């Protein structure tokens, strides 16, 4: 690849170029050179080793080491599978959509390298139901790749075989959870599976399966092409590389910004996204999609990498930064977020099924002025009951934002008690 070490936008460099979504355009930019290098020059174990050494972490929200995940794949007689999780549904996140629509071949190349490394025979690209354009772009790219000998039997003359199938989801947030995705992929209701067994042992159709996020795959060709040291020159020691920060909310320049992990949140909000409208102040910022705990204005000096965000009791999530200014009613925010989780809970586990609805009802009671002091305590108790006790992390994701809103903005909740007039009348108006 042509990426020079000083280029910090290796993922997004060509996204403005329409031709980059085509095989020709992608190959003109040295596309598929990394895949060729992998299948011709590197053993699967060497690829896994490179990825593990690079420190690449999953960009879907959990932030687990990609190389280690690949190393969990058992070496047995069963055919192995790969899944590209393109069910991007976290409110505040829109990075995968751009990659799918504008750089589908980069994702396919990442998939090919991962397939080589994990000895997978087939990849399912599971695309969020609402992402029609993204699915069409990936389908076009897959067809071109077959045509160009980059998929199918004997890829690039190496003898390696791989198939890619594009699957459309039906629009459920929970199908972004990897085992919920696998259930949906198998044609069942999207409900996360209890673990163990983990997907590497029994994934899609009972076969060993690795599931990675779209953006995670997109980093892989760059690492293989440019090396571990190059990749580690971006970001922090524990969180190397760049990521695509999607900034939305009350900022002047919302959009997608590719920046090294570890970039300060205030730099993202004020320098890159232009800050809040004149005369307003930042009230709070959600650092990584609505399931991640909010940070108050005073804590924006944090570096955006899990090792630093952890100290502030929050996480990077998907890097979807949501900015709220001082007109925002945090009870209203809690209401919107809790409604989302209530609507999207799959309904298996007691705490999540009942807790998401109970929290939403309690928050709405407070919002409409019918709340009492004790309701705040109940909210915290219920959120506590939902944390760390369920089949998947959805329940935590529903509990954390409420806990954080109460931790940092309890006075907003208290100001609603016994008054039918919202203290923030302009909230959500602009």
């Amino acid at each position: 690849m042509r990426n020079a070490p000083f280029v910090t936008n290796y993922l997004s460099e060509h996204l403005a170029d329409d031709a980059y979504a085509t095989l020709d355009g992608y190959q003109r930019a040295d596309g598929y050179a990394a895949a060729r290098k992998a299948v011709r020059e590197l053993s699967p174990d060497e690829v896994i080793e490179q990825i593990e050494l690079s420190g690449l972490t999953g960009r879907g929200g959990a932030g687990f080491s990609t190389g280690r995940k690949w190393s969990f794949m058992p070496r047995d007689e069963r055919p192995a599978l790969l899944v590209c999780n393109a069910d991007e549904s976290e409110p505040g996140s829109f990075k995968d959509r751009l990659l799918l629509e504008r750089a589908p071949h980069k994702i396919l190349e990442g998939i090919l390298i991962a397939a080589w490394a994990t000895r997978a025979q087939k990849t399912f690209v599971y695309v969020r139901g609402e992402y029609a354009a993204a699915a069409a772009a990936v389908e076009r790219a897959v067809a071109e790749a077959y045509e160009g000998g980059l998929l199918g039997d004997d890829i690039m003359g190496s003898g390696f075989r791989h198939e890619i199938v594009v699957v459309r989801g039906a629009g459920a947030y929970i199908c972004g959870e990897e085992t919920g995705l696998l259930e949906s992929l198998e044609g069942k209701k999207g409900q996360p599976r209890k673990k163990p067994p983990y997907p590497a042992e029994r994934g899609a159709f009972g076969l060993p399966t690795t599931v990675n996020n779209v953006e995670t795959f997109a980093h892989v060709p760059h690492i293989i092409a440019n090396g571990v040291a190059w990749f580690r020159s971006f970001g922090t020691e524990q969180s190397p590389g760049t990521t695509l920060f999607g900034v939305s909310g009350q900022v002047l320049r919302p959009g997608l910004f590719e920046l090294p992990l570890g970039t300060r949140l205030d730099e993202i909000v004020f320098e890159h996204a232009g800050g809040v409208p004149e005369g307003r102040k930042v009230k709070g910022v959600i650092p990584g999609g609505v399931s991640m705990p909010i940070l108050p204005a005073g804590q924006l000096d944090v570096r955006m990498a899990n090792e630093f965000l952890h100290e502030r009791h929050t996480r990077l999530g998907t890097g979807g930064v949501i900015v709220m200014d001082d007109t925002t009613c945090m009870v209203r925010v809690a209401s919107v977020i809790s409604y989302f989780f209530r609507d999207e809970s799959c309904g298996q586990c007691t705490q999540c099924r009942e807790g998401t609805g109970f929290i939403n009802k309690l928050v709405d009671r407070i919002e409409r002025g019918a709340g009492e002091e004790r309701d705040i305590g109940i909210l915290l108790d219920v959120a506590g009951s939902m944390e760390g006790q369920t089949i998947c992390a959805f329940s935590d994701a529903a509990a954390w934002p409420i806990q954080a809103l109460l931790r940092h903005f309890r006075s907003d909740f208290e100001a609603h008690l016994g008054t039918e007039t919202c203290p923030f009348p302009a909230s959500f108006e602009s």
Partner: protein
Amino acid sequence: MTVRITVDDLEIEVREGRMLLQALDDAGLLAHEIEIPHFCWHPKLSIDGSCRLCQVEVEGESKLQIACNTKVVDGMVVRTDSERVRNARAGVMELLLVNHPLDCPICDQAGECKLQDFAFDHGRRACRSHEPRRTLAKNVAIGPEIVFDQERCILCRRCVRFCNEVTGTGELGVFGRGDASVVDTFPGVPLDNAYSMNVADICPVGALTTRDFRFKVRVWDLDEVDGICTGCARGCNIRLGVAKGAVQRAVPRRNDAVNGTWMCDPGRSSCRAVGAPDRLTEPRLRGRDGRLAPADIATAIEAAAARIRRLVDAKGAGVLAGIASAHATNEDLFAFWKFLDSIGAGTRGAPVVRGASDGILIEPEKAANARGAREIGFDVTGAIAERIRSGAVDAAIVLGHDILDAQFLGGTEALATLDTLVVLDLHQSELHHVADVLIPTRHAAEKDGTLTNSMGRVQRVRRALEPPGQAWSEGHVISLLGAALGLAGFDGGWDAASVSAELARSNPRFAGIELAKVGSGGLDLADVAVAAATASGEA
């Protein structure tokens, strides 16, 4: 291979590779020494892991673990009653109750409701929710036997798994998601299979109840007695719920060697036949006018004995047939066999009605003791009907009315030509038109004895109910008849235990099986036990 684990202060050895709840269940400790409350887990269904009530603390794990899906490993230390565990349970219980209608006073599950029990044992004292509760379908007949209350459902999905995994019929599903999730049937497909009533047994709450039992009687007013279902040769272990002098319901009693935790719907109906209105309640004797008239037992026995003695004296014992019933106990049948030996009657049989089987529980032989009848020596094919039709028989002692089944004799014509017909039966039947002597008998739930199921498991029945009128076990009637005929070994008394002991002594298949030794789970016939021991030795 076993591993040693510590649960609270109890150190136990359990099978390797098992999940914690399963391991404790194997060891017979669950709900006895160790209580881990749970809703979705059931020993005979797949693991669901969704109710989250069985969370326990496992040393070395930062999060609480669900006992239903946590593998036991050697040296594992588990706490089931720490403060963290108690808080987690209280949290689950509070959330399970925020949408529950709390209509316990009018709910028929009250008294055996796990939600109620666990709310008292593990929940908070009071409800903290002011929020509106879900309003859903109530009192819906989702099948011929089952009534569904959707509001009370806690979505443990046991019923859904039962229909998927046990019957394979898949009538139930969870529709919607989040707190809009509901269990329901698919449009136009009722819950209608031969095991549908099991979903009411496994439903931990009052969401699924049986049309048959609901609102009949409060469960705390039931006398519950152990029994064996007599509907087919499986011999499912059951518990009869008795109140107001009648069987109000039959539910399965767990026996992993026989029926697991299930029983079929026809079996439940058959158990209700104990108290059917057509039960015989007094001996009857056909008078000179050709009508059956009530008689006391001594008169009835003497009349039967006189007719048999006269015939045997005139024509020899060859003209006497013994038609046994595979509904009678091993002891009854052994007494009958001995009687026929003693008098010298060679024509013997125990016709067993055959029907459909399903590979789950329902067996083709529709009598609880068909295997026992065979083991004692009776031919169960119905060949005896040919002997009667051929005219070689002048008198018959008939136990039950299975012989009337279309496969055997059809109508009563052939029996009408007999000189003497002595009938011992539970219910009124066509035999009444042709019987000379009619003596009421006891149902399996009204007497002591044993039944041998199709797999060769000898199981105990107990005198749990009083018959609706006068009734004697078949063996007792035979003993009276034998004494009246002056046959050796018959004194007119009846003690099932001593007959059982005699059977154990005289028939090697029943070696070692005496009524008193047959516990609640039953004992295998000697050859079955040997076969099982050999098989496990080889394994």
